[in-house]
């Protein structure tokens, strides 16, 4: 029987074979007196979906479970949409910008189209403005539901996630019925809308208005009173008004800090000043306040939708100017959405001039007088600003989007440094960033 000395595990031969003696406990000698002193760990979170926000990477410096430094790395979803718009005509721009913040596509379309309309100096018909408000508020509900659903998922409340997505599906069904698509609608166009509300849509929206308040109440019953939910959210991701303004943060985060800054109220557009609704605020400046503000905003959006439905009057949904308005009405054919059969019959069989007009407007587009404008709208995440520059031609010279997710995500470090690593997730979920908008 021999024993060999090995620094890791001594061994000896026995009749049963070789036996190792594994010892340990020499870490104190290796590391010094306190092994937890100066324990700095750099953790790379991502790049991947934290949930459905998109691809985000966090680099966290940790001491124990405390985050001492949080750096956010973005750009994984950069698709060059801003530059792409410079190579398409003004109407095609709508189909690009709608893909930026994919949870709030109609806000992107509305912001872009309002900027183009301001450059053109045109007013859209009343019915178009009302329907824009209507679809945007539907979209706001859908977006907030995703925010709440993913919030639940990230906190481990999976029923919140399934409920949120179920409710969102109702909104998406409505938007599909109205626009033809669940997302990326390209429904709002410079000068008005692609098409009027289909028959039956108003009835379906009213049914939704009946159901949704109950679902919001369910959500409150499921999450709001729950002690775990409250403890995960309260006093987490703190950012007060001063911090918000310094970091340019707007939307529910700013309102949860107590400032009732909502562009629908302070700089009304599309007739928002004529709607009766409140701007929900909280005074907690934390993730809990943001959760409550979003929940209340869903209710306010329902109020606005109801009023919009009540005031819908028959009328055109596109400007009269035939040099801007798309020449054809859209209709559903056997191969999908397209120009209506009557219009095709008219231009192909009856009127050469109509054909020329259609061809010119579709291939060449319209010219927009030179100049620049900045048009902000209140998206579910805050101020969504469109800085659009025209050089007088048929294409935008430059489209810059001030995306609220991009700006708000900067607050990650301020919200999570000094807190626990688990609270980083709560803080980011309460920002509700959509990386499609962040990276554009």
């Amino acid at each position, binding site marked *: 029987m021999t024993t060999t000395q090995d620094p890791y595990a001594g061994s000896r031969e026995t009749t049963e074979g070789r036996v190792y003696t594994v010892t340990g406990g020499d870490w104190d000698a290796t590391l010094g007196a306190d092994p937890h002193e100066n324990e700095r760990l750099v953790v790379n979170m991502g790049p991947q979906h934290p949930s459905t926000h998109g691809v985000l990477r966090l680099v966290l410096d940790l001491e124990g479970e405390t985050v001492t430094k949080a750096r956010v790395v*973005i*750009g994984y979803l950069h698709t060059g949409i801003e530059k792409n718009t410079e*190579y398409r005509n003004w109407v095609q721009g709508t189909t690009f910008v709608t893909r930026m913040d994919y949870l709030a596509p109609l806000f992107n379309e509305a912001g872009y189209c309002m900027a183009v309309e301001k450059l053109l100096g045109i007013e859209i018909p009343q019915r178009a403005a009302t329907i824009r408000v209507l679809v945007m508020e539907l979209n706001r509900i859908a977006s907030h539901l995703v925010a709440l659903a993913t919030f639940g998922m990230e906190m481990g409340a999976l029923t919140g996630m399934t409920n949120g997505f179920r409710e969102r599906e109702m909104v998406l069904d409505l938007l599909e019925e109205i626009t033809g698509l669940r997302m990326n609608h390209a429904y709002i166009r410079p000068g008005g809308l692609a098409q009027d509300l289909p028959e039956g849509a108003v009835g379906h929206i009213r049914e939704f208005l009946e159901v949704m308040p109950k679902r919001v109440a369910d959500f409150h019953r499921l999450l709001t009173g729950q002690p775990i939910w409250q403890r995960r959210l309260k006093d987490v991701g703190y950012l007060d008004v001063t911090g918000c303004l310094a970091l*340019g943060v707007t939307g529910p985060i700013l309102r949860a800090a107590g400032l009732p800054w909502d562009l629908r109220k302070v700089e009304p557009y599309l007739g928002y000043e004529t709607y009766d609704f409140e701007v929900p605020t909280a005074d907690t400046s934390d993730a809990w306040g943001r959760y409550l503000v979003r929940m209340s905003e869903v209710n306010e959006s329902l109020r606005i939708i109801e009023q919009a439905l009540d005031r819908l009057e028959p009328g055109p949904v596109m400007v009269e100017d035939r040099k801007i308005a798309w020449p054809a009405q859209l209709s559903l054919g056997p191969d999908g959405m397209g120009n209506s059969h009557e219009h095709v019959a008219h231009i192909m069989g009856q009127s050469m001039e109509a054909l020329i007009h259609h061809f010119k407007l579709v291939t060449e587009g319209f010219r927009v007088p030179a100049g620049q404008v900045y048009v*902000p709208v209140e998206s579910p995440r805050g101020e969504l600003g469109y*800085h659009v520059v025209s*050089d007088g031609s048929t294409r935008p010279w*430059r489209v810059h989007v001030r995306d609220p997710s991009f700006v708000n995500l900067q607050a990650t470090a301020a919200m999570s440094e000094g807190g626990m690593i688990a609270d980083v997730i709560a803080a980011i979920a309460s920002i509700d960033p959509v990386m499609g908008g962040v990276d554009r």
Partner: protein
Amino acid sequence: MSDDGGSNVVPGREEAGYDDATAPSGGFRKGSFGVSGSGDTSGFGGLVRVEPGGAVALHSTERPYGGWFDEVTDALIEAVGQATYDAAVQRVLVDRGEITYFVAREHLLTLAQALRDDEALRFELLSSLSAVDYLDSGGPAVAPGRPRLHVVYHLTSMTYRRRIRLEVAVSAEDPHVPSVTASYPTADWHERETFDMFGIVFDGHPGLTRILMPDDWDGHPQRKDYPLGGIPVEYHDATIPPPDTRRAYR
């Protein structure tokens, strides 16, 4: 883009009676499809048109500007002093209900600080910061002494519910602008993006690195002389060229 991008002489400007001093914002454009050297036999390629307006309006709005624009301007003059204001603000343009101050970069930080802190101004929020490349955007905009890169700041006063725009123009050869991150910390990412996309160097920024493009990327994609890129796509036996080489009406 026309084929005489680098040159400042636009053919036909004399014939069209063009005069730098009197033309408020005119520009010139050659051809009709924005493509040159493609063997266009339609004859449209030889067209020289006077544009009703170039991308950059070059005139200055005379006072009174109207509305609260005068109030803000007076408050700004009071805050920084008439001498600094005259040196800093090269011209003011009121267009479509928006006011733009064209600012010399040396005085940008003084103005930004005053705009944020002065009681009568209170532009607490820097809504947006980006740039526009006016390369080749029509006659006067590309003339010497008219820098092509314009950094654009959109400021919001939540107290008074007002919005103004500052514009700082720099050339591609000397693309330096002081960073406003000290006054507006939100400018951090905006300036990184503007550096990434336009190559504008913000002096004094705490860490000016690329933000959207990969760290080792060459070039600045949103400059006008940076191609869009793309590959031809085959569809139903036809080849569709990439968007930036397609014929298009300009």
